[in-house]
């Protein structure tokens, strides 16, 4: 059940976040393995006991580390989920790739009238933070947004609420400014 390697993997995941390793790596005890689309790499995530999430700390009336610009960040995450999670009966990960424009367009519809530049600046900040914490997987060069491995840590019982959230969000509008 437990082994020194497992302890090391877990600790490493704690220190570095979700780990991206070659697919040949054996899955350490108690970890979740998510194989990437190309099949060559997979992500390793820790599976907490009884799938308990930090949401539980609210019940304990304890604090988690605060997220910076929480609303902005979460709006972008929700928008990305809207764009990438195309088959909402399946699990969110891996989902389909979307473009940054599409995601930002959904955000724009959520917070209309903010102006191109403000939207872009806030949006990019949120992308960077979500990419760093592996909630999203951003490829700046091709402006591509994918869901990150951490979305697989949402427990199953949260999925109905996530689906409802997705259904409520507007879809990205067709490309209005092809030159952007």
């Amino acid at each position, binding site marked *: 059940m437990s082994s020194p390697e497992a302890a090391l993997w877990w600790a490493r995941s704690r220190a570095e976040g979700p780990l991206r390793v070659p697919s040949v790596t054996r899955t350490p005890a108690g970890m979740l393995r998510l194989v990437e689309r190309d099949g060559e790499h997979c992500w390793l995530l820790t599976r907490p006991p*009884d799938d*308990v999430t930090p*949401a*539980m700390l*609210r*019940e*304990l*009336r304890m604090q988690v580390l605060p997220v910076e610009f929480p609303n902005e960040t979460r709006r972008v995450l929700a928008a990305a989920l809207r764009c990438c999670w195309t088959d909402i009966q399946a699990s969110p990960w891996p989902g389909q790739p979307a473009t940054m424009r599409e995601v930002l367009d959904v955000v724009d519809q959520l917070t209309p009238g903010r102006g191109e530049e403000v939207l872009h600046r806030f949006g990019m900040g949120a992308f960077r933070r979500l990419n760093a914490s592996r909630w999203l997987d951003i490829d700046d060069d091709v402006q591509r947004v994918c869901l990150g491995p951490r979305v697989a840590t949402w427990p199953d*019982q949260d999925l*109905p*609420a996530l*689906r*409802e959230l997705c*259904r409520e969000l507007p879809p990205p509008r067709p490309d209005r400014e092809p030159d952007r």
Partner: protein
Amino acid sequence: MSGSTPQGEDIVGDRVLVGLQSVRISRLSTHPIPVAAGTLIAVAGQGPKDSNGAGKSSLLAQISLLHADEQWRFGSGAPAAVDLLFNSEDAGGEDRWGNADHGYLIGVFAPAAGTLDQLQACALTVWIRIDRSNQKGPRLKLRWRDGLHLPVGDSEAEREQAADSVWQALPPRAGRQDVAARDLPRTLYGEHVRCVSFLSTSVRASAAPNLLAQPLNEISERRIFEAIAALTGIDTELEKERQARRHEYDRRQEASGAESDLATWEESAQVIEDGIDARDRARELVVEAADRWRSRTARLLCDALQRDADIQVEIAEIDTVINRDIRTAQELARQAAELADDEAFTRRQQAAMSTFGKLDSDDRELGNQIATLEQQIEDIDRLLRAAREAARDADGRNEQAAERERAEADAALEDTVKAVGVAEKALSDAESSLRDAESGRDLAQQQIEILAAEGIGAIGLLDAVVLDEPDRARWEAALWPYREAAVVDSEQLNRASQLLAGIPGSILIAANRASSAPGRLPGSADPEYDVSGFLAALHARTTARSDPDRVYDDAGIVVVGGFSQPATGRATRIAAARERVRQRSTAHEDAVKARNAAGQKVISAERRQKGARAAAEAYQLEGQAGTLRKKDQATRQARGELAPTLSAAQAERDAVLRLAGVRQQQIESLQRQKTTLDNTNKTRREKHGKLEEEQSQLGLPELIVRWDGTPDSASEYLRTLPDNQQSWSADDWWEEAKDLISTAISECFPPTASDTMPMEITGLLEESSQRGPGSSRRAQVAFAPLLRALRVYLRQQEGTDQYERQQIAIQREERHKSLAAARIGHEEAVQASRAYRGALTSAIKKTLADVAAEFDRLDGAYGGYGASLHYEDPPPPADPTEAWGWKVTPMWRRAEGRRHIPYDRRANTAQIDDRAIKLVCAAAAASGTGRPLVLVLDELGRNLGKQHRREAVALLGQIGRDSGITVVGALQDDMETYAIDACGQYVKLRRSSDSSPYNEQPVVVGYDEHAPRVELLRAWLTGNGYREPA
């Protein structure tokens, strides 16, 4: 955390749930549901397709949540409770509808019994609000208030709306906040276990084993103990033990803290002490080395002396041994002879064989008896089960009552049969008179027939007259005396009279006579027979009076009228006759129905009678079974008592047989031993000679000179040496002395401080460690001077060493004192928790014994063969971080008279589930908490075979009566009938179509024998869509 402490604890106390209502929970309707507490409540469902999809599981889950079932994980905020909220996906309308973001579970609790006033005074309403998002506080919020505070409304929408406003009006109870999930169990029930449940996985999957949720055989013995402890309330006492253990742990940490402090200090003191110690060791080593040197000399001398003495002793010993062995050989020969001839043994052998034979046959006989008895018990059991099944038809009547009811039903049937006969007669009479009226031959029938035969037309008077309604009162009375009269044309009166001579009393009335019409007269029905003349005459003769309507004839005759039906006119008279027939026929039909009803009653009475007889038979069979079981037990006991004697006899037989074999072997072995002894003695005599030669070669005198003392003083010196050194040789002593001195030097001058070594020592050391031939001798020569030099050096160091050591000792003592204090604290804590455990052990064993007895009783009473619990005192935890591991092994007999088999052996699932329920019930019954329990069982009877279903539900129906347990069970169709048969209340959740997102009002049929409870909830129920009977 602070500021959120709830005001109360255990607010529900020993009240029971008597009603519940839910708002926005699953697809349940908002109708309240009364609860017949203390009975089996059968919850069935009717969805659009089958019994699924009506929300049975949700209702059950709701009850378990209201009772703070641990499965919900309240410590984590009961996250799964959110799944209870209305969910558009489950409702199949996720594209149209959203999820409910909050909902309520409302429970009404009241004392189990009491007058209406008492119930009203003590009722309590508990609200649990579930929020889908915990963004704005806890997911579960708890509010409550004395009395009934419930939403009321005529429609579902009104009730849903009302719920929010009633909630708002209830005060939060934890200061300005609401009591949240974490504090819910403590607040409502003071941590008493009030619910044991098996909830189906769709609602709530418990990760932890639960007596009902998991197959019992997969649950560990320790977990079973914990469950029993929680149910019986001993867990609160165990909590104290845990606290004691925690205290012990803290004290231990303190002690180990003091210990580590000491270790830190020791580390620094060590450096100095090591130096001093090394020098002290060196001092001892120097002394020892000198001693060893002297020992060596003594040893050399004494060895020689010893060898001399040894040889003398050895010679003497050899002589002794030779003599002894000769004697032994003689004894051996004697024993062999004795063994060969023994009469007593032969007698014993015979006796043992015959005793065993007799006892063994007795035992087999008893075994056969037991087998027969068991067969009989099994047969009777089969009969008993059949009789009980049949006894169900008695509807609770005893034999007497059933006989009486049967007799009454028979009598009633007989009465109704008679009544049918009477009615039949009346009917046939009415029918014939109708026929007559129709044929017109009811009046003067004979006369008219005779006249008609002679060609004379005639009709009855009453048929000849037509009366208008106003005329009826007068004329019907007037005409009545002549109702038998026939009307004949006046011309033919005479002929007619002659023709009728054969019929005396015939009356003829003349028709077509001229009339002296005095006024209006009734008309004639047939123009051929005008009777106006007769009427006019009659009119003249008679006077009409009323009240009652009557007619006075001049002759002084009074005819009373007031006929209900017109008496005249053919049509009207036929109508009247028909009416009579209809009436009779109705009466007849009624009589037939009454007879049929009575017949049905006889059938049910007959069925009950049979049932009651079967019940009586069952009772009798139980008695028989009891007698047989007793007999079986007695036989078993007898066999058990026989067993020791039998096994003793067997042992004796075996022993005797074995002895006989052994004897022969012994004789042979004795003879072999004797031969061996003779040979040994020969060898010994040769050794004797060699020893005498060695003795003469020892050089004793020279050694005495070297010792510088008497030989006695040398051996005296050696004797005082420790035991282990007694055997050292002279070379050993030299090696020791040499090692000691070089160790002493390296102790004094470790490699780091080797340059402090005095020159003299350095020189001597070099000399003694030179290699080459004669090195050993040179070293022995240099030994004494080296010893002396080292002694001088060490003496110089002695003063400072002593001082430093003193200082360290003082400090060490202080530190050890504080460590000792900490250890005493620890030890006291250990004692305290040991004392707790001691006191608890007996309490726990007592409780477990109670549970075991109840478990056995329940099992025996409901289809089992007896059960028990096995448990032992667990050893106290070796470490305070270990739990005190009690274990309980449930056991039961798998068949009549068999041994108790542990629960985790292979068995069918039905049996295991059945025992699990019995165990929970037993624990609840033996509980010291006095708190009523709720068993929540989804998929009730999921594993039961047909045969066990009735017994299982019978237990569940009965347990409420015995122990105040309310059992709520959800059922599939095929269990429904069994469950209803034992239930106190039947609830059927209904949803008629897939298009409807919500349930309709559930069907509730039930009986609460505590009428005040029904009354208590009446206003609430009627305010929420319930009706009172018209």
